[in-house]
């Protein structure tokens, strides 16, 4: 098969290979080792195939690529339309990159219902990839909701003590919010007669949607509410810390690493893509919430006694940067926002894996249970420090590039945005280094910590790729930015026109 043939098939393959694997897993006998190996192979296969995307992605081109568009159901008019641009391609890769690491980190920590666990994990992967590859609103919504079930089950079955509470809270929060998006999607379908994103976008841009002007504020909000809960934006964020604390490690990795980005991706694709005027009109309060999220999330993270909650609140802070960048409507801001999504996926994913390593050994995330761990676990301490540094935005590691671009974009949009956002560089150092000190430095205070074993081979195998990726993204971010920038310029076109119109008036 030539590469052009593969181009039209590749997204389908990447999206459904994990699901295929999950279905096959049902028929594999309950030998845990076989199941783990099979899940690993499946997820690696999806990852290797996904490498085809950046390898054949046309960098200079701003539109959608690897397009596949076929009618699926005639009435209602639903198309199987999949394609990616510079935004979604990297999110697909983030998903396929993190899933094998999730399999590795769950290798020994999941002993019961191993089969169900990996089936759910692979179904989740398909749903996540589907969210980023779908260009049909119905298909998008289908995958969007499909992520809920496996994630809620992963938390509800394989989580810790209060898992059912957390799972139900997670499910209800995001489910309720999604209803508003569904309403908006159905309204658009009723007027345009198509779920196709590109057709809907064209119809809106050409003014062919009757009643759009009056409905637009509500449509914008419908999408935005669903996305804001997912991000999560202050003040609808309280499901996240609970979900994280109770989730198994792999669940947390995918939750923070990928699932939250569905929200910011949605804002970028749908809020900005379909409603540029509304985006601009609503930007002041959205940016305000993002800034509150950055500062508030960091300050609350600082005082958490539980390591996982701390990382969860830090995610709220980091995702605040993403929203800030998107709603700055500047090229640096949006480039940075997409980069923060990817960088946060890698570093916070790794942080959750690291927290899981400790839980594995001590069955607790309470920071005060530790202290002085650098002595018995030097390699673990080194990995942890490296990831902490990437998360606090040390230049040449992945966290810096995105944050810097976001802040410079926000500053350009309005100086105060950049100034308030930039206080984040102080806060992140406070909460992460303080936590690091309490866990790793000083003398050992709990006898049993003296004999904690250092990282196992499997744990190292899961952490090395994340650490190396954090370094590559920091040193050579251009690999990613080259593909992101055209999509950013494309997304900014209507904003340039809005500005021109404002000047013209």
């Amino acid at each position: 098969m030539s590469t052009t043939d593969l181009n039209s098939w590749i997204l389908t393959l990447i999206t459904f290979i994990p699901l295929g694997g999950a279905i096959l897993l049902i028929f594999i006998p309950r030998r845990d080792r076989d199941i783990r190996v099979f899940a690993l192979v499946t997820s690696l296969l999806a990852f290797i195939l996904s490498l085809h995307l950046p390898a054949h992605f046309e960098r200079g081109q701003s539109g959608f690529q690897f397009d596949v568009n076929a009618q699926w159901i005639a009435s209602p008019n639903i198309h199987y339309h999949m394609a990616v641009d510079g935004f979604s391609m990297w999110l697909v890769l983030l998903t396929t990159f993190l899933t094998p690491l999730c399999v590795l980190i769950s290798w020994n920590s999941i002993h019961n219902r191993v089969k169900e666990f990996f089936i759910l994990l692979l179904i989740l992967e398909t749903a996540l990839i589907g969210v980023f590859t779908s260009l049909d609103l119905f298909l998008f919504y289908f995958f969007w909701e499909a992520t809920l079930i496996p994630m809620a089950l992963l938390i509800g079955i394989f989580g810790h003590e209060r898992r059912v509470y957390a799972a139900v809270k997670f499910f209800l929060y995001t489910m309720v919010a999604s209803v508003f998006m569904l309403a908006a999607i159905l309204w658009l379908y009723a007027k345009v007669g198509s779920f196709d994103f590109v057709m809907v976008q064209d119809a809106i841009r050409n003014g062919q949607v009757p009643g759009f002007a009056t409905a637009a504020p509500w449509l914008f909000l419908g999408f935005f509410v669903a996305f804001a809960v997912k991000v999560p934006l202050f003040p609808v964020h309280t499901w996240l810390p609970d979900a994280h604390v109770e989730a198994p490690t792999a669940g947390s990795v995918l939750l923070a690493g990928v699932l939250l980005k569905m929200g910011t991706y949605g804002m970028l694709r749908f809020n900005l893509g379909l409603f540029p005027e509304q985006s601009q009109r609503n930007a002041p309060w959205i940016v305000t919430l993002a800034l509150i999220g950055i500062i508030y999330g960091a300050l609350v993270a600082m005082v958490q006694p539980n390591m996982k909650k701390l990382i969860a609140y830090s995610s709220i802070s980091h995702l605040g940067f993403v929203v800030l960048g998107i709603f700055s409507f500047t090229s640096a801001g949006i480039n940075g926002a997409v980069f923060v999504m990817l960088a946060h996926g890698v570093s916070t994913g790794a942080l959750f894996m690291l927290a899981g390593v400790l839980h594995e050994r001590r069955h607790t995330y309470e920071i005060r249970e530790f202290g002085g761990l650098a002595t018995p676990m030097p390699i673990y301490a080194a990995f942890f420090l490296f990831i902490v540094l990437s998360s606090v935005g040390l230049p040449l590691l992945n966290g810096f590039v995105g944050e810097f671009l976001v802040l410079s974009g926000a500053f350009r949009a309005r100086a105060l945005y950049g100034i308030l956002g930039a206080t984040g560089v102080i806060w992140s150092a406070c909460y992460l280094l303080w936590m690091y000190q309490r866990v790793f430095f000083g003398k050992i205070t709990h006898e049993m910590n003296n004999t904690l074993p250092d990282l196992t081979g499997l744990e190292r195998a899961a952490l090395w790729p994340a650490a190396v990726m954090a370094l590559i993204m920091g040193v050579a971010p251009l690999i990613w930015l080259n593909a992101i920038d055209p999509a950013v310029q494309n997304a900014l076109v209507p904003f340039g026109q809005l500005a021109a119109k404002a000047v013209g008036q």
Partner: protein
Amino acid sequence: MTQTALHLWLIPLLPLLGAAINGLFGRRFSRPTVAAVGVGFCGAAFAMVLFVLARFFALSLPHIETYATWLRAGSFQVDYGFYLDELSMIMLLVVTGVGFLIHIYSVGYMWEEGGFYRFFCYLNVFMFFMLTLVLAHSYLVMFIGWEGVGLASYLLIGFWFTKDSAASAGKKAFIVNRIGDFGFLIALFLLIKHFGSLTFSQVFASISQLPVETAGAGLLTTIGILLMVGAAGKSAQIPLYVWLPDAMEGPTPVSALIHAATMVTAGVYMVARSHLIFDRAPMALTVVAVIGTLTAFYAATIGMAQTDIKKVLAYSTISQLGYMFLACGVAAYTAGIFHLMTHAFFKGLLFLAAGSVIHAVGGEQDMRKMGGLRSKIPWTFWTMTMGTFAIAGFPPLAGFFSKDEILWQASRVNMALWGVGEFTAFLTSFYMFRLWFLTFFGEYRGSAEESHAHAGHGAIHESPKIMLIPLVILAILSVVGGWVNIGKNFEKFLEPAFRSGSTAYTLTESAAQAGKAVGEQGSTELLFTLTSVLAAVLGLLLAWLLYKSHPELPAKIAAALNGLYTAVVNKYYVDELYAILFVKPLVEGSRKILWQGIDQGLIDDSINDMADGARKVSDTFRHMQSGNVRSYAGWIALGAAGVIAYMIWIALT
């Protein structure tokens, strides 16, 4: 732009390679191997700098090398690139030269410590970032080094991480520096917004077209002050100096290299590098000069009452950095960089010698438990004596020339700056000779000789040759290092790096020259020089009086000055003040108001109440759902897969 390729990138990358080798494999290496790698790669960087120096005078300056694009968004782009001119050449020599000596010294000093490989790995990491900082061709590449040296400092202050005080000091250094970095970042955002670039050549080309902001604070003044905020963090100036005294928790070679000779001067370097901005922003210059002068004086007063030998040197460092900022603040950048260089020699020396003293008396740092060490550790004594006379400003030692130049330049701008600077010179001489007398003269007051508690360490002993050789070399440099500026040769060499067009500097220059005839100026300068020497001598005499001839006096004076003395000993309670004003409210407010109040109370409770209400309505539904999550897991997964399969089937038919 591409002339002869000098491969400047090798200079920082060599130590990075050393760090990588020791970091990844050092645990399995023997100590000599670790030392050879650590010292070797640092030495290689020094050799590379000498290689560059040999070709330096044939270059057309600035010599810029760009290698690859680091990041790009829209039209904004930053490349990896290095910038060599007179200023970065001097910095390269100081950093690699002094750095190399301190690497050698460390082999001896750290030989018996655990984590030997870790130490050299961090030290090499530091060299990589510091060299990146001074070679950077743009503010953002400089920022790589700027943050990176902060990381190395964090790691090395907390090197003995099982000590809580060391771990806390490392964290404090990092966080306080981040506060400065916040200012630095905002300055960068302003530069991007208004000039579209962070590359020196582009930014400076635009700025050199701008007029001097005489009418009040404008863009350049704002940028200048924000840069100074960054510099105040890195170079420990008021109000962000508080991390440096605590940083003395690190091993002494680290104090010498990072917290005296090189890293803490990065702020001075950055201000000097940005001279085009400051030259056009007289108000920003004034801020720099005032902060520098105040810090110099303030830190010197604290230094007078410290009893820990390293703490005295730490406050002295803060004070001397203040002099460098004073120089920059009166646009006498060459004088500032000159003092930066001589300070690297004598303060590096003083720290290493202090390390040798501490080593000799078995880890004791309290000068009250020293005394009479002169004859027991003669090499240390004599080298430290050179350093003490050099920093006190006795001619013809290095510190005399550079400090005198700063004070002379300050006097031409503002006599108050000069006066405070001169008085601080007296204080400097006093606290340094106090240290000198307390440590080396009188009777030994410690216990190392008698108790043989540490096996083999009991007797007071001179340090091994590997530590003494760097001391001797630095002592020689502390003596002769100032001579390079006889006939203003050093200033003439550096001067092209600070050429600026129409500037505040030339304004003050011409004002100064208009007031004084050239001949008169020569005799005035001599008068100022005599005053400086007098200040140094007075400091020595007072220290001799109090700590040599009448050792009972200090206690009486302290008792007489009760309140003031306690305040000085306790460093004016600034740490405590910061804790009450910032740290406590932030932590407690975050915990009680934000987390427990808003997050758990206001938001979560109200939403849970809402959910409860909804739950009552759909009670049966809830009952069905939540009880059976576990057992339905497989069915739901299977169901979802079935639905998808069905839809695919529809799609295919």
